[in-house]
């Protein structure tokens, strides 16, 4: 192999796998948009209060899509190897990223954390999730 990832065996390329990859990619795109808006909010300061609902909306979309990716991945591994439960580090990374955004969404619901703290939590989750995206593939 000169570079890149080895191709998957044909029988592994099921609909669940394709759905898993698609949702994962879309989920990361959504939380990346939320993080970009978060950076802008932090740079602009309190003037840009209108961005927080949009950050929350993108984070919610990302959370839902990453949850869908996790479920599709679990069904894919079950179809292949028979277990729904994460056995390999890649699967645990997926669960970990999803838990990070679970925390972020709940941080947005705590009155005392609304605003800067919630935005920072979202950025921290994104910064931790990006290495996972490259490591778990």
């Amino acid at each position: 192999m000169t570079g890149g990832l080895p191709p998957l065996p044909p029988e592994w390329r099921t609909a669940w796998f394709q759905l898993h990859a698609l949702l994962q990619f879309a989920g990361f795109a959504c939380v990346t948009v939320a993080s970009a808006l978060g950076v802008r909010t932090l740079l602009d300061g309190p003037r840009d209060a209108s961005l927080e609902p949009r950050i929350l909306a993108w984070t919610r979309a990302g959370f839902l899509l990453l949850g869908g990716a996790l479920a599709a991945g679990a069904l894919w591994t079950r179809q292949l190897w028979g277990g729904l439960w994460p056995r390999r580090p890649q699967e645990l990374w997926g669960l970990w990223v999803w838990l990070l955004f679970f925390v972020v969404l709940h941080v947005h619901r705590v009155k005392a954390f609304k605003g800067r703290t919630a935005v920072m939590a979202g950025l921290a989750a994104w910064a931790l999730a990006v290495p996972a995206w490259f490591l778990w593939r």
Partner: protein
Amino acid sequence: MRAASSTPQTPAQGSAGQPFHEDIPRQVMALAAWAGFWMLAEWALRRRGLDDRRALLAFLALLAPMALGGVLWARGWLFRLFTSVRFAVAQGGFLAAAVLLATALRAGGLPRRLWFCALLAVLAAAMLTVTWKRRPYDLARAGFLLVHVAPALVLAGALWGRLGGVQAWGGLASGATLDSLYRVGEPGLVRLPGFRLGLERRGPRGPEVLVLDPEGRELARKCVSPGDPLRFRGYEIRPSVLRPDDAAAAGIEVLRDPGRWLVQAGLASLLLGCAWMFYLKPVLKRRRAEGGKP
């Protein structure tokens, strides 16, 4: 956006004088103590030679009186804690840290560890308590209900699968038959109920497995591959990842998971509930505000 100065208490500065259900650092310490207790319990159970299944039964036998005691003697305290959003933050953060640590340490079989099950049990109990607190539910809030019952469904399905299910493997030579397999993750053999497995030959996509009755009559046959198992009486038979196969022999894995439907229902409930809460609920609420019926 609110300025940082308008947030009077953060987890780092607001511990003193805060009630427990509002105090994230103390909640995290309590979760660590809870996980630590179950790590010690698991260590003690393993020292006594208990396998996965018996350790899980002991876990449930210990957890049940704890839950009953909590309901009888600390109901109000637990209710405030379990319905606190800050406790949800603490639990999510603690679980994320635990998963990260287990991944970094390559600690396999995390879902089999009692301390992880104990943390999930608290999460499921907290979410069910929140579900109880927010009742009654109308159509707009059905998503909240679906999301918050999901962890309990997933956990119940997982426990059912582990207690009532079978995951076993065996090496099958061409022409030979097999009626007992090794359990995965625990010692001992599993005897197949009323049938045995045979290997006819290696097909183009994997080994061709036969299911035979005790007299040797053929009941089913299929060329199995990882994504396309042979299904027979609730069992799934597929090539094993534990043993590489060759032309004359194959590693075969047998799985029976009676709780998988609950787990899948839990996952579906979680995703449908999230979509409902995020996208359908605002529409239903707007329609209701405008005078229309949802």
